[in-house]
């Protein structure tokens, strides 16, 4: 569940619980308030009555000590005055039932005794409890409706606000983690947020990326430096062997052994050159300002490689449309990309096999497929074929050192060409290159 949904859901549920509690408690609350209010009113009425008695005398209400009583037509209120025993004392407010003209009605009754003209009187003022209780159910309903409406509004507000406040999180994930194409991290752009937690997260991720980037650069630098440093000694050895070949005092038997040395030195040289080339590509030290027709480039590769086809009696069928021109590319690199792919298609092919190269446009992209009828690659090995020094397929006659496909991959990445492989053991492999619009004219 999304963080935003969780937060909103929790907010809604907690508010709902509080509101329900409040609505349930509402009657007793209202009763409480009503009591206080009624009691106040009763007291005020009592004071008023006492004042009247004081200023005008008890005669206003009573003659000859007869009981006085008065109530409203619907009996919701009444007042009564009685003479009581001189030492009787009462001053309370409580709920009591009274029989008034055959109806038993519960009243809130103020009882108060007072003396005037040597006599003790009892004053009772009653207010019907029903009139008090009636309103609370209606109030409860209204309160519930209003509060539910408010909850709905706050949920909406919560949604909008949490969406706004969580936005930087999504942005951080999208731009810093998913959007970052390894190893090209680009520049650090602060994600705009006033939330310190997100600022902290953003900074931490940035620091982590910097650490990775540093390690990566160090590795690249190391490969680059190591390759350079190896070039000079290899160069010296190569020159020495070359000069020795030309000496008359060295027998042919020794020269054959020197040839072995030369071959091994060549291998060392090729590995170093290839590693250096990969590091140069990865460090973007190549320009991309060449242009060439796709067909022409493949023809050039064919011219270089045809001798190898001949040796294995392999037929090749290149069908690429005439008009397609590649722009913003490095010709040297793309040549090497195709050379290595086709070379592999030859190397891992069977005697008298076939190679088919198809080029076509699809959704504005140029797709070039190179299919062979070779030994194929096992499914469990497919994910590793672009790793350096991974020799997966046992070539039948030739030696290789497992850098052909890594260089293909580096060149493809450099040009933003995607490369995918499908393969069937003993049937052959298909390498599919998808050229982006940016390299097409």
């Amino acid at each position, binding site marked *: 569940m999304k963080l935003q949904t969780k937060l909103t859901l929790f907010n809604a549920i907690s508010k709902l619980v509080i509101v329900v509690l409040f609505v349930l408690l509402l009657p007793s609350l209202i009763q409480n308030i009503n009591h206080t209010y009624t009691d106040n009113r009763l007291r005020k009425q009592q004071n008023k009555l006492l004042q009247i008695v004081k200023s005008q005398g008890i005669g206003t209400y009573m003659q000859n000590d007869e009981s006085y009583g008065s109530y409203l037509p619907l009996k919701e209120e009444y007042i009564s005055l009685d003479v009581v025993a001189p030492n009787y004392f009462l001053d309370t407010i409580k709920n009591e039932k009274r029989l008034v003209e055959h109806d038993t009605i519960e009243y809130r009754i103020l009882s108060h005794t007072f003396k005037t003209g040597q006599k003790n009187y009892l004053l009772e003022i009653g207010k019907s409890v029903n009139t008090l209780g009636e309103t609370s159910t209606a109030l409860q309903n209204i309160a519930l409706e209003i509060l539910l409406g408010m909850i709905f509004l706050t949920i909406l507000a919560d949604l909008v606000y949490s969406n706004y406040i969580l936005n930087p999180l999504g942005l951080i994930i999208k731009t810093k983690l998913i959007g970052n194409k390894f190893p090209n991290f680009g520049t650090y752009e602060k994600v705009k947020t006033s939330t310190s937690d997100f600022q902290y997260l953003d900074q931490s991720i940035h620091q982590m990326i910097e650490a990775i980037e540093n390690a990566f650069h160090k590795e690249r630098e190391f490969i680059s430096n190591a390759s350079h440093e190896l070039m000079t000694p290899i160069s010296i050895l190569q*020159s020495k062997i070359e000069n020795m070949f030309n000496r008359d005092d060295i027998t042919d038997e020794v020269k054959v052994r020197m040839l072995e040395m030369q071959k091994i030195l060549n291998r060392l040289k090729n590995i170093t050159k290839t590693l250096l080339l990969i590091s140069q590509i990865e460090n973007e030290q190549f320009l991309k300002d060449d242009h060439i027709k796709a067909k022409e480039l493949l023809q050039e590769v064919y011219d*270089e490689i045809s001798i190898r086809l*001949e040796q294995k009696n392999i037929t090749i069928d290149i069908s690429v449309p005439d008009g397609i021109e590649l722009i913003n590319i490095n010709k040297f690199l793309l040549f090497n990309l195709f050379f290595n792919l086709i070379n592999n298609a030859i190397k891992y092919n069977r005697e008298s096999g076939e190679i088919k190269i198809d080029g076509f446009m699809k959704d504005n992209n140029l797709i070039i497929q190179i299919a062979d009828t070779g030994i194929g690659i096992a499914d469990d090995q497919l994910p590793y074929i672009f790793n350096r020094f991974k020799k997966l397929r046992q070539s039948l006659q030739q030696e290789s050192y497992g850098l052909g496909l890594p260089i293909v991959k580096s060149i493809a990445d450099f040009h933003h060409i995607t490369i995918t492989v499908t393969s069937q053991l003993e049937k052959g492999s298909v390498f599919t290159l998808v050229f982006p619009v940016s390299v097409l004219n």
Partner: protein
Amino acid sequence: MNILIIEDERSLARELEIFLAGANYVCEICYNGKTASQKIAINLYDFILIDLGLPDYEGLDLLKEAKKNNPDAACIILTARAEVYDRIKGLDLGADDYLAKPFSMLELQSRMQAITRRKFGLKHTIITLGEFSVDLDNRTIAHNGTTISTITKKEYDLVAYLILHKNRTLTRPQLSEHIWGSIINDDCDSNYIDVHIKNIRKKLNTYAPADWLETVRGLGYKIKLN
């Protein structure tokens, strides 16, 4: 021809000298940029080989000085720093060629010859091999005056390389490097040269025996020429 070799790796400079002297060049060696700068200011050379990775001198500055004081000299840059940037910069400053270390000295000689042909205008060179003649300017092989059109560019390159290094056995790795040197390639097999040689022989033999193209058993190939 006079050559100035500017290379701080003494061992490599020495091998270059042995090789180029064997090819009848007159060599002078400088192990550092300072003496090289002095020599360039005083003497005149036909070729100046400049190592870019000198500890005491910016190699490209030497190139500028060479262009100023030895305007007729052909400058070839040798470097282990094969960065494209340097490559472009070097050629812009007027270097005539560029070789990335490690390079074959046979290749160096081939480049020097190409420059000589271009720059110093060698007179039309036709090499006669038995009944065949090789035109080094038009890059063709002819039999009794008729150009053999079936010979491909690669096949001509191989013959021309063997002629340049005549009477010297060239091994398969050496020939491969010349033919496919610029291709970054995953395998170290150089037997494709055999296929090329076989094809050349087949094409030539339909006209006349091409026995001047010798196989040196276990080593490679050579063209005998006096």
